């Protein structure tokens, strides 16, 4: 964990955002259209020097929150501050202090090479040529793109463009950086290098703050000092990864491997079962069962055997952030993504 200050780097107070649906549009349940609520009264306080994570399924409101904090979108209710400045009334003062990188972005000019594109984006922040050159060189090394510095962006692969985009966020040395799914679609090594750099960057600059959204639970667990879980625009929990996991520790957790092709077993409604999820893998199906009492595992095993399913493995496991997420949201993050 980095050395955190006591000052707020990001603060929101009942921040809300709704969109007006077209008159003829209907809500998902077929009812007449009302406003679509993307963010519903979110209050956050992120301290200076903190690496704060936002976890939530697609459409949870994470990107909406980031767009508001980066002055791109006006809230329809509540207020937000970055580095003590109001994101609506003091947007022009907020902008020199921030930057944002969104995974899967395809920004830049194809006719320019990687170095020229990064130089362009440094110029609009007033970074001098000498400083820009130095930062660009370092960042290209970090993401392993140094050998492509003189390659036109139109000739880069999607992953390489994403790496360039990641560099763009850091070359302006922002006080508060927003990373929206920065490792989305990157290969394992590149994602690992990026995670390592993010940690080093914050360690070198204790007055910098980073707000990260990610789908990858392990990434959030590894990187974040604190996390907020958000769904349907509402914040459901906010704490350190360790404290969040402790919240679900009161329910003993078992992982049961079942041979593939067996009869599906319905155990979610068995007495003593708090929650159950299943994940079909290539070689087996895994049931993850959270119990109200540990002794209920006997009934679960019996139900599986009675359903003529073959148990391959059974083990008690420690809760992960995925389990916290399931506990709070009712389903896995990938279930919605799928």
């Amino acid at each position, binding site marked *: 964990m980095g050395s955190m200050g006591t000052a707020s780097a990001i603060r929101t107070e009942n921040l809300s955002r709704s*969109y007006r649906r077209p008159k003829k549009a209907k809500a998902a349940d077929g009812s007449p259209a009302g406003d679509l609520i993307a963010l519903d009264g979110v209050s956050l306080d992120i301290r200076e020097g903190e690496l704060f994570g936002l976890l939530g399924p697609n459409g949870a409101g994470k990107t909406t929150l980031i*767009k508001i904090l*980066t*002055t*791109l*979108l*006006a809230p329809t209710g509540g207020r937000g501050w970055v580095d003590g400045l109001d994101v609506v009334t003091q947007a*022009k003062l907020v*902008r*020199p202090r*921030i*930057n*944002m990188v*969104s995974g899967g*972005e*395809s*920004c*830049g*000019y194809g*006719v*320019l090479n990687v170095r*020229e594109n990064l*130089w*362009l*984006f440094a*110029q*609009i*922040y*007033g970074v001098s040529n000498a400083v820009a050159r130095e930062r660009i060189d370092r960042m290209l090394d970090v993401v392993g793109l140094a050998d492509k510095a003189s390659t*036109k962006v139109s000739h880069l692969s999607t992953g390489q463009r994403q790496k360039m985009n990641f560099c*763009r966020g850091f070359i302006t040395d922002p006080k508060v950086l927003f990373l929206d799914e920065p490792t989305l679609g990157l290969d394992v090594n590149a994602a690992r290098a990026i995670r390592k750099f993010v940690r080093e960057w914050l360690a070198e600059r204790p007055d910098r703050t980073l707000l990260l959204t990610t789908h990858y639970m392990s990434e959030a667990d590894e990187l974040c000092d604190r996390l907020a879980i958000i769904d349907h625009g509402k914040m459901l929990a906010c704490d350190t990864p360790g404290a969040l996991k402790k919240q679900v520790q009161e329910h003993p957790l078992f992982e049961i491997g079942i041979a593939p092709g067996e009869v599906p077993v319905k155990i979610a409604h068995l007495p003593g079962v708090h929650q159950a999820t299943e994940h079909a893998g290539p070689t087996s199906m895994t049931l993850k069962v959270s119990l109200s009492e540990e002794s209920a595992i006997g009934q679960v095993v019996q139900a599986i055997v009675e359903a003529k399913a073959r148990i391959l493995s059974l083990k008690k496991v420690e809760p992960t952030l995925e389990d916290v997420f399931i506990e709070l949201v009712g389903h896995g993050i990938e279930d919605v993504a799928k």
Partner: protein
Amino acid sequence: MKNAISLFLRTMIARAYPRIIGMRRQPSWVIHEAILPILSVAAFAYVYRAMKAPEEYVGFVILGGAMTAFWLNVLWSMGAQLYWERSSGNLEIYIMAPGSMMAVLAGMALGGMVLTFVRASVIMGVGILMFQVPFAPTSWSLLIGVFLLTLLALYGLGMMFASVFLLWGREAWHIVNLLQEPVFLMTGMNFPLKILPTAVASAAAIIPLTAGMDALRQLLFGVEGFWPVWIEALLLAGLSVLFIALAARLLAYLERLASKEGRLTVKWQ
């Protein structure tokens, strides 16, 4: 203040850079941006020659051909540009950055002017050599001054278009098409403006090309224009101020509206 000016200039030069460098990296522009326009200029020139029209009419057509390049650049590369910037994801980066959007627009204009100046010079040079057009500028300084004022007003209009077109989204494409051809007629791109009815020519004065080309023709070929050169120069200066001020107002309004309605973050609409 010094920092604000420095940031404005850095942003402007940075945004102009892709346009200027693109000309060097994509040399195929010579074919479709210079050689093809010369063919259409040649067609008009031969018609005038066949009709035994005064020789300066051929010069009008060559000048019109060169200025057409600026008009097309203003419509396609200025007017529609912010719309494309949004589609490519660059717009939200520009808006989120401390560099002003007016500097971004000024950079687009500067890049467009430099790029199109080279194209227009090729058209003018080849046209003059091909048709041996006699031109005798009465005043080089006045000629350069009027030309620069025309560009300033024209690109000021382009900056205004950029803001408006962003607001209209996908319809921008149709609006650009709608503006393209009628302007060739209204501004007297290939014929003397005096031929048009006074009311039509006066109404067309809102387009900087009208007064600009009429003044340039007077200064280059010593012919009588629709208005005296000094009136046209004043008109161009007034239009420059008007369009740039309107562009700034519209941009600020658009930014507020887009942020309120969430339009800046929608890539395609």
